């Protein structure tokens, strides 16, 4: 450490916060995917919804059906079900952005350690004092934590807009007690449940993101083909081997492990089948007596946290950590891509 004290005397040094700036760097490069992709998709969907509801309301009114709107039954139950429409709109917004998230995370992870080796800019990043460990972890942090948070925030915004559009349309169409869409909704329950999806996503998507980053760090060319074809062909070959007599293979488990967990786990919510409460949820859905939007909402808004009790999630996360570790090693020694 003598060298350090010596250099501190002869050079002026200032404080640095490498990880923070690596995260900013990723944002600068990928804000199109992280921020604009969900917002633009949301804006388009909101616009289409608005146009459709205007058309719908106009046609509904001109048909004279509004005069036939009658209501008999419990007012409280009616309000509860109408409130479910608001929750559904909110949830639709969030589901929309999480679907966008699946694509964004997939292609981000796949390019994260490959693109800069292809355009040689890795040589610039490597000329600066940021370790490969920090560089890879900053990218994993975006894929697994920050991009999902952005996605939920954008989803809530879009959901609120959809909610307003539908509520206004319902009132304009003369739906009885339409204000219940706002007063009897449970937005905190919906948003709260979506927030729990963020830590679950981190753990659940780890093997897929890890695998994609590993391929990204390893491939000399065409990381997409390696990342997708390798698990796919492996599964196909194992399935074909099963044609031979005397071999008993659990194909489902192979496909599930390699393809579903290795690739499709970037899709938020894809953990539902692995949840310990999955059978129970299905049962509940089968027995459900759906009277309106609120009942439907009840079935859709299931807890994300049940999956934390499954070995599947934790084994996957451990494998994901190993993949990311391998990606860090490859980042250190791998040379440029073609």
């Amino acid at each position, binding site marked *: 450490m003598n060298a350090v004290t010596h250099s501190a005397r002869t050079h002026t040094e200032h404080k640095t916060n490498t990880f923070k700036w690596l995260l900013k760097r990723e944002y600068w490069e990928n804000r199109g995917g992280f921020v604009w992709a969900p917002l633009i998709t949301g804006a388009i969907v909101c616009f289409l919804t608005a146009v459709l509801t205007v058309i719908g309301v106009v046609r509904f009114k001109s048909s004279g059906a509004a005069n036939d709107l009658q209501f008999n039954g419990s007012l409280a139950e009616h309000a509860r079900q109408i409130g479910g429409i608001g929750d559904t709109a909110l949830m639709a917004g969030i589901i929309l952005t999480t679907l966008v998230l699946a694509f964004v995370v997939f292609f981000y992870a796949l390019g994260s350690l490959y693109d800069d080796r292809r355009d040689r800019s890795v040589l610039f990043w490597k*000329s600066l004092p940021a370790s490969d460990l920090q560089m890879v972890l900053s990218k994993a942090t975006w894929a697994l934590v920050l991009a999902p948070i952005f996605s939920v925030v954008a989803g809530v915004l879009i959901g609120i807009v959809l909610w307003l559009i539908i509520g206004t349309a319902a009132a304009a169409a003369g739906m009885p007690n339409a204000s219940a869409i706002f007063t009897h909704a449970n937005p905190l329950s919906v948003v709260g449940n979506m927030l729990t999806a963020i830590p679950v996503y981190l753990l659940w998507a780890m093997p897929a993101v890890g695998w994609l980053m590993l391929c990204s760090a390893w491939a000399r060319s065409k990381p997409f083909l390696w990342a997708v074809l390798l698990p796919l062909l492996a599964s196909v070959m194992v399935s074909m081997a099963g044609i031979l007599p005397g071999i008993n293979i659990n194909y489902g488990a192979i496909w599930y492990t390699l393809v579903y967990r290795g690739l499709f786990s970037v899709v938020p919510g894809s953990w539902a089948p692995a949840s310990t409460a999955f059978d129970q949820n299905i049962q509940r859905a089968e027995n459900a007596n759906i009277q309106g939007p609120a009942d439907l909402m009840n079935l859709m808004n299931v807890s994300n946290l049940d999956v934390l009790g499954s070995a599947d999630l934790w084994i996957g996360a451990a494998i994901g950590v190993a993949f990311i570790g391998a990606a860090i090693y490859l980042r250190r*020694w791998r040379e440029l891509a073609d």
Partner: protein
Amino acid sequence: MNVANHVISARGLRKTYRNKPALDNTSFNVEAGRIIGLIGPNGAGKTTALKAILGLIPFEGDLKVLGMDPRKQRDELMNEVCFIADVAVLPRWIKVKEAIDFVDGIHPRFDRAKCERFIANTKLSPNLRVREMSKGMIVQLHLALVMAIDAKLLVLDEPTLGLDILYRKQFYQRLLEDYFDEQKTIIVTTHQVEEIENILTDVMFIRDGKIVLTATMDEVAERYTEVLASTDTLEAARALHPIDERTLPFGKNVLLFDGVPRPQLAAFGETRNPGLADLFVAIMKGTYA
């Protein structure tokens, strides 16, 4: 042989690419406060040697850069070392201000004010992206970033490739005027030997992964002499075993001698210091044969 004074000390470096040695038992030392030209034909191992120094590739042998092993202590080393690996490596999406913010944010030795002063002398504006710049502007940005870093060792691998002559001259001029001092060491590889020979203090010729010549420019001037021999002195001069000979128009011959005292050669004709390019050609003779 005080190891502490060596910025780089390499012993027996070996690196093989597909059975072809890129570094073949290579050994050399680099002292502080020098500007070293690492010169060799294509595929001689220049870039491999630089990559080894920068800890970018695995290799065999004993290498210390600023007292550190680049294989094991690369993260520490990069606080003291900077490199430009040709100009086309700045990411195309980055803006001038983002590049400055980023380097300022992660490099403890980056002097932001100095960098902005360099930028102010160019046509670069804060919101300009690299993809909108000409190659000359990209190199101006890269140079401004790197020169504002107070690194002990700067490695330049073909830094002016593809630039026009104005930018090439400006590049080395600014390095000399605004960056280099006796605390710093610069290693540079280039094919445009003529453009850097007047700024070098030392030269290293590399061929087939081996260092074939390492000398200060003064030593080169002392050891090698060119004689402009006329037809009547030519045979006598040839008897002293020149290492190279080329013919000029009007029947004159230029003979290049290694280690023959200059007064002795003066008898055959006009003597002068050989250009680095001519010396290079003489020493590398037969490389591509």
